[in-house]
Protein backbone atom coordinates (compact mmCIF):
# COMPACT_ATOMS: atom_id res chain seq x y z
CA UNK A 1 0.00 0.00 0.00
CA UNK A 2 1.33 3.39 -0.82
CA UNK A 3 1.23 5.59 2.26
CA UNK A 4 2.25 9.04 3.27
CA UNK A 5 5.56 9.43 5.03
CA UNK A 6 4.07 9.73 8.50
CA UNK A 7 1.74 6.78 8.05
CA UNK A 8 4.60 4.74 6.74
CA UNK A 9 6.70 5.49 9.77
CA UNK A 10 3.86 4.63 12.11
CA UNK A 11 3.11 1.37 10.39
CA UNK A 12 6.77 0.55 10.22
CA UNK A 13 6.95 0.97 13.97
CA UNK A 14 4.05 -1.43 14.33
CA UNK A 15 5.71 -3.86 12.00
CA UNK A 16 8.88 -3.86 14.07
CA UNK A 17 6.92 -4.42 17.25
CA UNK A 18 4.81 -7.17 15.77
CA UNK A 19 7.85 -9.06 14.57
CA UNK A 20 9.75 -8.91 17.81
CA UNK A 21 9.25 -12.48 18.84
CA UNK A 22 9.55 -14.14 15.47
CA UNK A 23 10.00 -13.39 11.82
CA UNK A 24 11.77 -10.60 10.00
CA UNK A 25 11.23 -7.13 8.71
CA UNK A 26 12.40 -6.43 5.18
CA UNK A 27 13.13 -2.89 4.06
CA UNK A 28 14.02 -1.89 0.52
CA UNK A 29 15.06 1.51 -0.78
CA UNK A 30 15.63 2.63 -4.30
CA UNK A 31 15.68 5.68 -6.41
CA UNK A 32 12.35 6.27 -8.02
CA UNK A 33 12.81 6.92 -11.71
CA UNK A 34 9.41 5.95 -13.01
CA UNK A 35 8.40 8.23 -15.80
CA UNK A 36 4.74 8.70 -16.68
CA UNK A 37 3.35 6.76 -19.63
CA UNK A 38 4.09 9.49 -22.20
CA UNK A 39 7.79 8.69 -22.43
CA UNK A 40 7.37 4.93 -22.53
CA UNK A 41 5.91 5.09 -26.02
CA UNK A 42 9.12 6.67 -27.27
CA UNK A 43 11.04 3.49 -26.51
CA UNK A 44 11.15 0.55 -28.92
CA UNK A 45 8.69 -2.29 -28.53
CA UNK A 46 11.42 -4.52 -27.19
CA UNK A 47 12.22 -2.02 -24.50
CA UNK A 48 8.64 -1.79 -23.36
CA UNK A 49 8.55 -5.53 -22.81
CA UNK A 50 11.71 -5.43 -20.81
CA UNK A 51 10.22 -2.61 -18.82
CA UNK A 52 7.17 -4.60 -17.91
CA UNK A 53 9.25 -7.55 -16.93
CA UNK A 54 11.44 -5.55 -14.60
CA UNK A 55 8.43 -4.94 -12.45
CA UNK A 56 9.74 -1.90 -10.67
CA UNK A 57 8.32 0.85 -12.78
CA UNK A 58 11.63 1.95 -14.23
CA UNK A 59 10.96 0.42 -17.62
CA UNK A 60 10.46 2.05 -20.93
CA UNK A 61 13.20 4.57 -20.78
CA UNK A 62 15.96 2.28 -21.92
CA UNK A 63 16.02 3.91 -25.35
CA UNK A 64 16.40 7.41 -24.06
CA UNK A 65 18.04 6.37 -20.87
CA UNK A 66 21.46 7.63 -21.75
CA UNK A 67 20.27 11.00 -22.97
CA UNK A 68 17.96 11.54 -20.05
CA UNK A 69 20.59 10.66 -17.50
CA UNK A 70 23.15 12.95 -19.02
CA UNK A 71 20.82 15.92 -18.74
CA UNK A 72 19.45 15.14 -15.36
CA UNK A 73 22.44 13.86 -13.53
CA UNK A 74 22.13 16.50 -10.91
CA UNK A 75 18.42 16.18 -10.59
CA UNK A 76 17.19 14.91 -7.27
CA UNK A 77 14.99 11.88 -7.47
CA UNK A 78 12.36 10.83 -5.02
CA UNK A 79 13.09 7.70 -3.09
CA UNK A 80 10.83 4.70 -2.90
CA UNK A 81 10.88 2.89 0.39
CA UNK A 82 9.15 -0.43 0.90
CA UNK A 83 8.67 -2.57 3.96
CA UNK A 84 7.21 -6.00 4.39
CA UNK A 85 7.09 -8.76 6.93
CA UNK A 86 7.72 -11.46 4.40
CA UNK A 87 4.92 -13.68 5.59
CA UNK A 88 3.29 -15.85 3.03
CA UNK A 89 -0.37 -16.58 2.45
CA UNK A 90 -2.94 -13.97 3.29
CA UNK A 91 -1.42 -12.15 6.16
CA UNK A 92 1.53 -10.54 4.43
CA UNK A 93 1.92 -6.91 5.29
CA UNK A 94 3.33 -4.70 2.55
CA UNK A 95 3.71 -0.95 2.91
CA UNK A 96 5.54 1.62 0.90
CA UNK A 97 6.11 5.31 0.67
CA UNK A 98 7.61 7.82 -1.68
CA UNK A 99 9.97 10.39 -0.27
CA UNK A 100 10.28 13.58 -2.24
CA UNK A 101 13.72 15.14 -2.56
CA UNK A 102 12.91 18.05 -0.26
CA UNK A 103 11.67 15.70 2.42
CA UNK A 104 14.82 13.62 2.49
CA UNK A 105 16.31 15.38 5.49
CA UNK A 106 13.30 15.29 7.77
CA UNK A 107 12.37 11.80 6.78
CA UNK A 108 15.84 10.39 7.27
CA UNK A 109 15.98 11.87 10.75
CA UNK A 110 12.72 10.28 11.77
CA UNK A 111 13.52 7.05 9.96
CA UNK A 112 16.96 6.86 11.52
CA UNK A 113 15.69 7.30 15.05
CA UNK A 114 12.98 4.71 14.46
CA UNK A 115 15.53 2.19 13.27
CA UNK A 116 17.90 2.88 16.11
CA UNK A 117 15.15 2.35 18.63
CA UNK A 118 13.86 -0.85 17.09
CA UNK A 119 17.11 -2.59 16.33
CA UNK A 120 17.59 -3.08 19.98
CA UNK A 121 18.50 -6.72 20.19
CA UNK A 122 21.89 -6.32 18.59
CA UNK A 123 24.66 -7.40 20.88
CA UNK A 124 26.63 -4.69 22.55
CA UNK A 125 30.31 -5.21 22.00
CA UNK A 126 32.14 -6.10 25.18
CA UNK A 127 35.46 -4.36 25.51
CA UNK A 128 37.02 -6.95 27.84
CA UNK A 129 40.40 -8.07 26.65
CA UNK A 130 39.80 -11.75 26.79
CA UNK A 131 42.59 -12.72 24.44
CA UNK A 132 46.32 -13.06 24.83
CA UNK A 133 48.98 -14.03 22.31
CA UNK A 134 49.12 -17.80 22.30
CA UNK A 135 52.85 -17.79 22.70
CA UNK A 136 52.71 -15.62 25.78
CA UNK A 137 49.66 -17.39 27.16
CA UNK A 138 50.91 -19.23 30.18
CA UNK A 139 52.00 -16.91 32.94
CA UNK A 140 51.74 -13.64 30.92
CA UNK A 141 49.98 -10.44 31.95
CA UNK A 142 46.86 -10.15 34.06
CA UNK A 143 44.73 -10.11 30.94
CA UNK A 144 46.05 -13.41 29.68
CA UNK A 145 43.53 -16.15 29.35
CA UNK A 146 44.43 -19.27 31.20
CA UNK A 147 44.91 -22.32 29.09
CA UNK A 148 44.32 -25.78 30.49
CA UNK A 149 47.26 -26.93 32.51
CA UNK A 150 48.49 -30.32 31.39
CA UNK A 151 49.46 -32.43 34.34
CA UNK A 152 49.77 -36.11 35.08
CA UNK A 153 52.00 -39.04 34.46
CA UNK A 154 53.25 -39.48 30.93
CA UNK A 155 52.99 -43.22 31.08
CA UNK A 156 51.22 -45.82 33.06
CA UNK A 157 48.16 -45.19 35.11
CA UNK A 158 46.46 -41.86 34.46
CA UNK A 159 48.05 -41.23 31.09
CA UNK A 160 44.70 -41.05 29.35
CA UNK A 161 43.66 -38.23 31.60
CA UNK A 162 46.79 -36.34 30.69
CA UNK A 163 46.20 -36.91 27.01
CA UNK A 164 42.69 -35.59 27.33
CA UNK A 165 44.01 -32.43 28.90
CA UNK A 166 46.58 -32.14 26.17
CA UNK A 167 43.96 -32.39 23.47
CA UNK A 168 41.79 -29.82 25.18
CA UNK A 169 44.70 -27.46 25.41
CA UNK A 170 45.56 -27.87 21.76
CA UNK A 171 41.99 -27.03 20.82
CA UNK A 172 42.09 -23.90 22.92
CA UNK A 173 45.34 -22.80 21.39
CA UNK A 174 43.94 -23.33 17.93
CA UNK A 175 40.90 -21.27 18.78
CA UNK A 176 43.00 -18.47 20.17
CA UNK A 177 45.20 -18.37 17.12
CA UNK A 178 42.20 -18.28 14.81
CA UNK A 179 40.57 -15.56 16.85
CA UNK A 180 43.70 -13.52 16.92
CA UNK A 181 44.05 -13.87 13.15
CA UNK A 182 40.46 -12.88 12.61
CA UNK A 183 40.80 -9.83 14.79
CA UNK A 184 43.98 -8.82 13.07
CA UNK A 185 42.15 -8.87 9.76
CA UNK A 186 39.21 -6.78 10.97
Amino acid at each position, binding site marked *: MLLSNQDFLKQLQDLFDAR*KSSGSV*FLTEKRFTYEPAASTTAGAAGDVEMGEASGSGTGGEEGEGAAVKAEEEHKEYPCLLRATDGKGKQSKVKISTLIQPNDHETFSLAYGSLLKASLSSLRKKKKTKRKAAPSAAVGGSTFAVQLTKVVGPRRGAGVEKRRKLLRRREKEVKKLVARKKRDAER
Partner: protein
Amino acid sequence: MVYYKRWEEFASASAALYEASPVKTRYCVRWRHEAGLLVLKVTDDRTCIKFKTRSAVFLNRFELLNRSLL
Protein backbone atom coordinates in the same frame (compact mmCIF):
# COMPACT_ATOMS: atom_id res chain seq x y z
CA MET B 1 26.19 -13.23 -3.53
CA VAL B 2 29.14 -11.91 -1.74
CA TYR B 3 29.20 -11.43 1.99
CA TYR B 4 31.62 -8.76 3.05
CA LYS B 5 33.54 -9.15 6.26
CA ARG B 6 34.43 -5.54 6.79
CA TRP B 7 32.16 -2.55 6.89
CA GLU B 8 34.48 -0.14 5.05
CA GLU B 9 34.76 -2.44 2.08
CA PHE B 10 31.04 -2.98 2.01
CA ALA B 11 30.37 0.75 2.17
CA SER B 12 32.77 1.63 -0.63
CA ALA B 13 31.56 -1.23 -2.79
CA SER B 14 27.95 -0.20 -2.37
CA ALA B 15 28.80 3.41 -3.17
CA ALA B 16 30.58 2.23 -6.32
CA LEU B 17 27.58 0.14 -7.35
CA TYR B 18 25.28 3.07 -6.87
CA GLU B 19 27.56 5.37 -8.88
CA ALA B 20 27.72 2.88 -11.69
CA SER B 21 23.99 2.32 -12.06
CA PRO B 22 21.88 4.59 -9.88
CA VAL B 23 18.71 3.56 -11.61
CA LYS B 24 18.90 -0.12 -10.91
CA THR B 25 20.66 -0.19 -7.61
CA ARG B 26 18.51 -0.97 -4.62
CA TYR B 27 19.35 -1.31 -1.02
CA CYS B 28 17.59 -3.97 1.05
CA VAL B 29 17.61 -4.49 4.77
CA ARG B 30 16.51 -7.54 6.64
CA TRP B 31 16.05 -7.48 10.36
CA ARG B 32 15.36 -10.43 12.63
CA HIS B 33 14.73 -9.34 16.15
CA GLU B 34 14.73 -12.62 18.01
CA ALA B 35 18.00 -13.54 16.39
CA GLY B 36 19.37 -10.03 16.67
CA LEU B 37 20.50 -10.27 13.08
CA LEU B 38 20.82 -7.44 10.58
CA VAL B 39 21.51 -8.17 6.94
CA LEU B 40 22.17 -5.46 4.36
CA LYS B 41 22.09 -6.10 0.67
CA VAL B 42 22.96 -3.78 -2.18
CA THR B 43 22.25 -5.01 -5.66
CA ASP B 44 21.89 -3.71 -9.17
CA ASP B 45 20.37 -6.96 -10.33
CA ARG B 46 23.66 -8.03 -11.84
CA THR B 47 25.91 -8.08 -8.84
CA CYS B 48 24.93 -8.35 -5.25
CA ILE B 49 26.85 -7.52 -2.14
CA LYS B 50 25.77 -8.26 1.37
CA PHE B 51 26.73 -7.57 4.89
CA LYS B 52 25.57 -9.40 7.98
CA THR B 53 25.97 -8.45 11.60
CA ARG B 54 24.76 -9.12 15.11
CA SER B 55 26.69 -6.33 16.64
CA ALA B 56 25.32 -3.03 17.83
CA VAL B 57 28.53 -1.30 16.83
CA PHE B 58 27.26 -1.00 13.30
CA LEU B 59 24.04 0.79 14.16
CA ASN B 60 25.51 4.24 13.67
CA ARG B 61 27.38 3.35 10.55
CA PHE B 62 24.29 1.72 9.17
CA GLU B 63 22.36 4.88 9.81
CA LEU B 64 25.00 7.00 8.11
CA LEU B 65 24.90 4.71 5.13
CA ASN B 66 21.13 5.08 4.97
CA ARG B 67 21.41 8.82 4.94
CA SER B 68 24.05 8.92 2.26
CA LEU B 69 22.13 6.59 -0.01
CA LEU B 70 18.85 8.46 0.26
